[in-house]
């Protein structure tokens, strides 16, 4: 294995992804363990990938969604946001259709003011989302969080086995996932989905504390309804697999 082949085939990246065959992996390790250039290359990629993952997760938290799609964006808006968006859309269409009829400058001015007001509300929503991330960064101690121990469900199907009551006055909630840690898994992540299967929250690089996990998330993401929190684990060189499912019914206390 020489540097030209390593460069051309992006061997270092596939090594980090765990996607080389055992023979290729052994040959590459035997080479790089004594090669400063390749060690630099691996560590550069490792840092870049972990940084990108972290930024992606933070961006997802900021937007309340990890999706780039317009449709997914709409689906994952809460009911108030969907209503606001629908109103804005209706207003925009109405303005476009009615524009030729609006000869009088006063009426046109009113429409512009309405559009400006809607735009302000839109920006206000955006700011609220941006603050979410800032709060997370500033509030590392998660003071005032409520802890909910969750019992694992037998399967991903069936009625929720946990029930939680979330107070809106508490900014953070912590799910303590019992019995999640299992031998052999190198890394863990948690994915929270609502009853429609839409991802509400996702966190990477979870670490077990003794035999349980703590998942911290802003309480405002939880609404009345049924949720499924899935803990996934990944073994060296393989993709993540579900380790446990924690279903719960959430009720909001204002």
């Amino acid at each position, binding site marked *: 294995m020489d540097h030209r082949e390593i460069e051309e085939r*992006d061997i270092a*990246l596939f*090594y*980090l*992804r*765990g996607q080389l065959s055992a023979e290729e992996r*052994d040959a590459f*390790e*035997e*080479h*790089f*363990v*004594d*090669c*400063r250039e390749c*060690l*630099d290359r*691996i*560590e*550069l*990629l*490792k*840092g*870049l*990938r*972990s*940084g*990108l*993952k*972290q*930024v*992606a997760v*933070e961006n997802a938290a900021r937007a309340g969604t990890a999706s*780039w799609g317009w449709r997914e964006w709409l689906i994952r808006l809460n009911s108030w946001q969907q209503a606001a968006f629908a109103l804005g859309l209706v207003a925009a269409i109405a303005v476009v259709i009615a524009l030729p009829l609006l000869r009088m400058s006063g009426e046109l001015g009113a429409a512009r003011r309405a559009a400006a007001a809607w735009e302000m509300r839109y920006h206000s929503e955006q700011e609220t989302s941006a603050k979410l991330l800032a709060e997370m960064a500033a509030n*590392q101690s998660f003071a005032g969080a409520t802890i909910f121990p969750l019992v694992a469900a037998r399967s991903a199907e069936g009625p929720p086995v946990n029930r939680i009551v979330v107070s809106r006055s508490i900014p953070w909630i912590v799910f303590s996932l019992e019995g999640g840690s299992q*031998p*052999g898994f*190198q*890394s863990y992540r948690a994915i929270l989905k609502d009853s429609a299967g839409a991802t509400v929250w996702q966190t990477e*690089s979870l*670490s*077990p*504390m003794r035999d349980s996990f703590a998942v911290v998330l802003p309480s405002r993401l939880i609404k009345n309804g049924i949720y499924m929190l899935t803990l996934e684990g990944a073994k*060296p060189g393989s993709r993540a697999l579900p380790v446990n499912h924690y279903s719960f019914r959430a009720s909001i206390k204002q």
Partner: protein
Amino acid sequence: MEIDANPEQTVDSSPADLVARIASGDRRAEEELIGRYSRGVSVILGTLVEQRALVEDLRQESFRIALEKIRKGDVREPERLSGFICSVARNLAIQYFRQPAQREVTGSTESVEFIVDSAPSPLQQLLRQENARIVRQVLSEVRPQRYQEILYRYYVAEEDKEAICADMGLSSLHFNRVLQRARDRYRELYLKAAQKQPGTIRVE
């Protein structure tokens, strides 16, 4: 990630020479072996074990085992010293993953020394934030902005290069150029950050 900001130039012995010197009791040769392979062994262990403290424990144990075998003359192919060191490290990590299962069955407490606090330390959290800041800067400089998607899809979502190129209407050359530019900029910013601290910095 670890970048050696002040690499020292050393003249490396041949693997076979190193093995012979260690076998004859040369302590400086042992130090040379550890200095030469330490970083690589940490990288190998780091792909198998997440916790930093555990990587360090396993690294030290790997060298203890390797040196013991070399001193006893148990290395059959001295010219393949690198392969020998790698296999010792990898086997040790695999052995570690097998131990919790054995402990569950037997109730043995012999492996208690392997229990480590897996939560990231405040320093690690700080370094991760610094790494994310650098990546955000790299991303902000990607032009046109839609090429940021290439980095996410290739490095985070682990999509195939061919699929991304087909989807975004890019040639292989163009794709490589975008990645190369991002990697170069990341390296540049990272070395700049490393130079603010003496020796090396590390981000995981």
